[in-house]
């Protein structure tokens, strides 16, 4: 399955499929491992009723072989603001670059097509390729939370980038 408007050169983003429960470690965003039962429950909970949903998980897969390599979770606040979180499969050598690819697909879709006022992305300050992609997409660094993310041997800052939609014409104080 390919979503034409969410397909790039190296990765594509699609809705979850039932078979994805078999590779939940790659996309299920939790440090506590999810087995097939938990993964299946998660998939069932988010698909119906989709017109009332405000939380969505989409799968990130590789174009070359359709291997599942991560997920992107959207948490929507009254269809004005959306929070984006990525999870990449462990042990991917190029996770940061692939996440950056996914961001390049996600931001134009949410900001320019859906016209969200703000698209927010939280990430640790070590994800340099994704940060570079965010800045190239005209996202602004809105929040830096000191030492919010544990990493091996210490902690790093969490950054929140926002893609602000200049097409909104409401006055901003």
């Amino acid at each position: 399955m390919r979503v034409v408007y969410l397909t790039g050169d190296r990765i594509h983003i699609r809705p979850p499929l039932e078979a994805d429960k078999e590779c939940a470690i790659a996309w299920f965003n939790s440090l506590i491992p999810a087995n097939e039962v938990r993964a299946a429950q998660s998939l069932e909970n988010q698909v119906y009723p989709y017109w009332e949903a405000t939380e969505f998980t989409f799968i990130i897969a590789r174009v070359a072989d359709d291997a599942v390599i991560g997920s992107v979770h959207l948490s929507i606040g009254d269809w004005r603001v959306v929070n984006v979180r990525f999870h990449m499969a462990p042990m991917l050598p190029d996770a940061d670059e692939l996440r950056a690819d996914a961001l390049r697909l996600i931001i134009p879709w949410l900001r320019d097509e859906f016209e969200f006022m703000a698209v927010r992305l939280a990430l640790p300050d070590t994800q340099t390729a994704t940060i570079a992609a965010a800045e190239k997409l005209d996202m602004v660094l809105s929040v830096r939370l000191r030492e919010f993310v544990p990493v091996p041997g210490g902690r790093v800052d969490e950054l929140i980038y926002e893609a602000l939609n200049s097409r909104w014409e409401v006055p901003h104080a």
Partner: protein
Amino acid sequence: MRNPILVGERVYIRPLEESDAQLLADIYAAETDTFNERGRLPVGPFAWKKWIVETHKEAYPSEVNFAVCLIENDQLIGHNGIVDINWINRTAESVSDFGPAELRSKGYGTDAKHLLLEYCFDILHLHALRSEIFEPNTRSAAAVTKQGYKLAGRWHYEDIKNGVMRDTLVFDILRPDWIAARDAWRARERK
């Protein structure tokens, strides 16, 4: 004092009980400020009771809340707590809500906040907290700054107020920030 967890200079914090539901509803019903959020929302005792029951069911909940009471007469004057607890990252968001209006700006909120931060940093051993304050609420922004929080940035376009989009200010605090602010506050209080 009734079932205190931590005791400050003039207030103490204790678990919220179902019997607090009506008192919290009364405090919300008497709210005089309109700048905290988009608008005031009456919350009845049924909703408060349900919230109190639900948030005490889990051993590792996503939120922990306390009743804030005066030492002198056990009067419930508000609640504070932490929400969005991340037990793995050891982070959370701190929240506070005080009333009645005549008891504000007397230092009770700061006294209670230092107890909450002691609970977070020295009992739960959380590493960092954040606080989110709607920009028009300048009183709360000034309060958390005095309590040791540092401005971390802003969520743009968070909500509407007086016909224009307003942001939410985001603050963070680490244990050394809190210790420095608490010690300075205690020195002033005990003069």
